[in-house]
């Protein structure tokens, strides 16, 4: 091959690179496949994964059962070694799957249109806020302080140089967002997470009505997608944009990534929506087909005037969510959602009966709740850890005023005996205090 180029050395192909800027040799070992596997296994052994614990961690990433058929289907190389369906005629698999995903998301959220997905819940919320600002042109964005702390952090990062006012609404004694704190003047949007970070169900309808009265848009966020199987749909409550995290839908916890940014809106705002969108089409013989549409919003055409800079999606994660929803189906999905609810309430009741322990908030919740402890949370969490329980997230990590609180999450994977054992361990720890 070199000879046909009239060259004698491969070095000649790099003659355009200045000599003085040449790279030093990399000091990176080369491993054979067995050595590589052994190395990664040894790193893996330094972790203790969730299968070694009874885990009650949630707060944005959840452990749900993933059907085996899902792994086999999403593991098909035809899906994972393809790319963006630029050549639609040879990408009908990906395109149809995303069209079905969009359909599933519209039905779950009660919205008109959904995009092909975004990076994660946090960046989806940030994009939703910027979209609302672009639509209304107003510079004040409001959001609940009970929004996931990392979503808040991401929103602030995205907005920092865009000359916007970010107003955080405090939470009330019952754990709901204090809607009375909503500013009177021109407000671009209100973002509520439901259930919020504390697991508490928000007065969503009231929030939507209030922000609409003030001419702003209502953004409904969520981090636990299973809640959509039991709560009224965001669309029915007045959402203009829905932006949340879809990790619960068949994606393993994965140390927090990759996840799935779910994004949906009303038809009237469709052209302002960031991200890829797939539409149904016909081929030259009239056959049903699918293709990317509304690309004139996107960066490769609009460049600096695009609705967003996003040029990819989390297609494989969207596929996983679609397969999850297909396997669970109407009945399965709703049943799993209700199991999460009832098991969480069962545990909350058992814990609240323990002397000196209480639920921090009176508001109803879905599958997460905040527990107030009589002592230092870390002491309880350490005690539980020694018994192979991951008891929850100490909230002081994100909310300095919640010094004695932990966030406890229950899903359908927890059996009754584990819930009982959890309560028993906490009782034992409490009894040993003082």
């Amino acid at each position, binding site marked *: 091959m070199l000879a046909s180029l009239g060259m004698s050395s491969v070095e000649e*192909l790099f003659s355009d690179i200045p000599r003085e*800027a040449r790279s030093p040799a990399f000091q990176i070992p080369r491993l054979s496949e067995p050595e590589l596997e052994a190395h990664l296994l040894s790193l893996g052994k330094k972790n203790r*994964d969730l299968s070694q614990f009874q885990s009650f961690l949630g707060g944005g990433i959840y452990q749900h059962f993933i059907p085996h058929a899902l792994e086999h289907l999403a593991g098909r190389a035809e899906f994972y070694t393809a790319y963006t369906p630029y050549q639609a*005629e040879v990408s009908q698999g990906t395109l149809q799957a995303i069209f079905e995903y969009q359909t599933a998301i519209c039905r779950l959220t009660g919205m008109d249109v959904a995009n092909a997905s975004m990076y994660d819940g946090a960046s989806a919320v940030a994009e939703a806020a910027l979209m609302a600002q672009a639509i209304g042109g107003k510079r004040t964005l409001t959001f609940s302080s009970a929004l996931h702390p990392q979503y808040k952090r991401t929103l602030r990062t995205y907005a920092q140089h865009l000359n916007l006012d970010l107003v955080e609404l405090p939470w009330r004694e019952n754990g709901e967002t204090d809607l009375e704190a909503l500013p009177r003047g021109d407000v671009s949007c209100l973002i509520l997470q439901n259930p919020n970070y504390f697991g508490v169900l928000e007065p969503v309808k009231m929030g939507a009505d209030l922000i609409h009265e003030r001419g702003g848009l209502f953004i409904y966020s969520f981090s636990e997608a299973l809640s959509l199987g039991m709560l009224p749909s965001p669309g029915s409550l007045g959402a203009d944009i829905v932006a949340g995290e879809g990790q619960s839908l068949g994606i393993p*916890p994965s*140390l*927090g990534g990759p996840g799935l940014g779910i994004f949906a809106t009303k038809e009237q705002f469709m052209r302002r929506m960031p991200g890829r969108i797939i539409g149904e089409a016909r081929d030259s013989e009239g056959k049903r087909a699918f293709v990317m549409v509304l690309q004139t919003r996107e*960066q490769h055409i609009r460049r600096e005037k695009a609705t967003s800079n996003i040029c*990819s999606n989390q297609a494989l994660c969207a596929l996983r969510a679609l397969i999850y929803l297909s396997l669970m189906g109407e009945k399965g999905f709703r049943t799993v959602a209700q199991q999460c609810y009832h098991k969480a309430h069962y545990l909350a009741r058992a814990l609240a009966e323990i002397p000196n322990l209480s639920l921090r908030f009176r508001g109803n919740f879905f599958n997460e709740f905040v527990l107030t402890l009589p002592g230092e949370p870390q002491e309880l969490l350490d005690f539980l850890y020694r018994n192979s329980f991951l008891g929850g997230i100490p909230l002081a990590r994100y909310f300095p005023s919640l010094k004695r609180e932990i966030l406890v999450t229950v899903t359908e994977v927890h059996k009754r005996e584990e819930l009982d054992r959890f309560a028993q361990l906490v009782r034992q720890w409490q009894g040993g205090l003082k």
Partner: protein
Amino acid sequence: MSELIFEKSQEGKIGFSLPELDVSPSPVDFEIRKEIGLPEVSEPEVVRHFTLLSQKNYCVDTGFYPLGSCTMKYNPKVNEDLARMREFALLHPEQPEETIQGALELLHNLEGYLCQITGMSRFTFQPAAGAHGELTGLLLIRACMEERGEKRDIVLIPDSAHGTNPASATLSGCQVREVKSDQRGGVDLQDLKSKLSSRVMALMLTNPNTLGLFDENILEIARLVHEAGGLLYYDGANLNGICGYVRPGDTGFDVVHLNLHKTFSAPHGGGGPGAGPVGVKENLVPYLPLPTVERDPEGKFYLDWERPKSIGMMRSFLGNFLVAVKAYAYILTMGGEGLKRMTEDAVLNANYLLHLLKGHYELPYERICKHEFVLSTRPLKEYNLKVTDVAKRLLDYGFHAPTIAFPLIVEGALMIEPTETENRQTLEAFARALIQIEEEAKHSPELLREAPHNTPVRRIDEVAANRNLILKK
């Protein structure tokens, strides 16, 4: 054939066996949702539906995928299995740090390798994709400028750049000024000089650029931008063309993003998840997103959330961790020398393919290319054919098409990136197909205009799909 999963739904079917609720139900004080509209299908029906769908995809495992600037190289299978291990996939980001030491060590090691490969000081793994990395990098530069007390809000971007560059610049609150390309396809130095000012915050550059050409003036460009008080951003989409030969950090770049799904073989997943880690020189380290992975003197790894100058978070948690696992496995499979060999093979493949096609399609810039090159189908206008027609006809020959109609500065662009994982026979077969298509264009242009003929569906009417939008069932 293309029935949707929703259209296969039959009441009462389910694809999963649920355990019974084993606790007594609690009262519910809201109206439980009655109907969602999810499909009701059995497990075998779901499996068949998605298996059949998958077979309508063209993918790297079935054929040559020369999509320019996307680096569609082979994705080693072992990496998939390693990332799927429950020791990595079943980790919760809020677990105690002592239980995720292996994961943090992996990120720490990978960060070290990426620093070595690029000549940077530190990396963050938060960005989920290249465009996400661009925004991160620009915010880092803005933070640095603000601390210096400088008001700079212009980002210079060459006219050959990826569309994400200007879109990211806008999102960072900056204005975009375009810099022209010169006769050789590089940055026009005169035009650059005329646009540099005390308001210029950064120049974003892809090198090799989207024409597959290495900018020979890079050291001069860096000097000019730095002299004017700006910083240089490196779009790492095309690192596969120089890895092991030159490091962005050694040619004056202050910030880089890498695409782990391109250079480092993590699969593209039909559009994602990818990963776009961002590396910086020492002066930008304080601004990196939260958290960073650190090692204490005892060798214990931890996450540092106490970084007062940080720009904040670009998304939740630590980024696309499982993608990082695959890139880590790839880098160790290649080793230092192997990474250089990777680039040599990629560049040799591209130049060989260019050599085979030269004379059949217009070549706008006659130079050695790096890992990709751009041809123009402009002469085919004579037969009333567009670049799309050539691309669609290639599908009939069993190849994926190159990136088309980009970069914008070349009319009818075919942007071809063969990657290093293709053998000579494949390159030659692809060249024969493109040459054959050129012949067809002259003698039977309708073959191109009506293409593709033997794909799962024929040419799709995108105009109609955009006019009559159907975005869900």
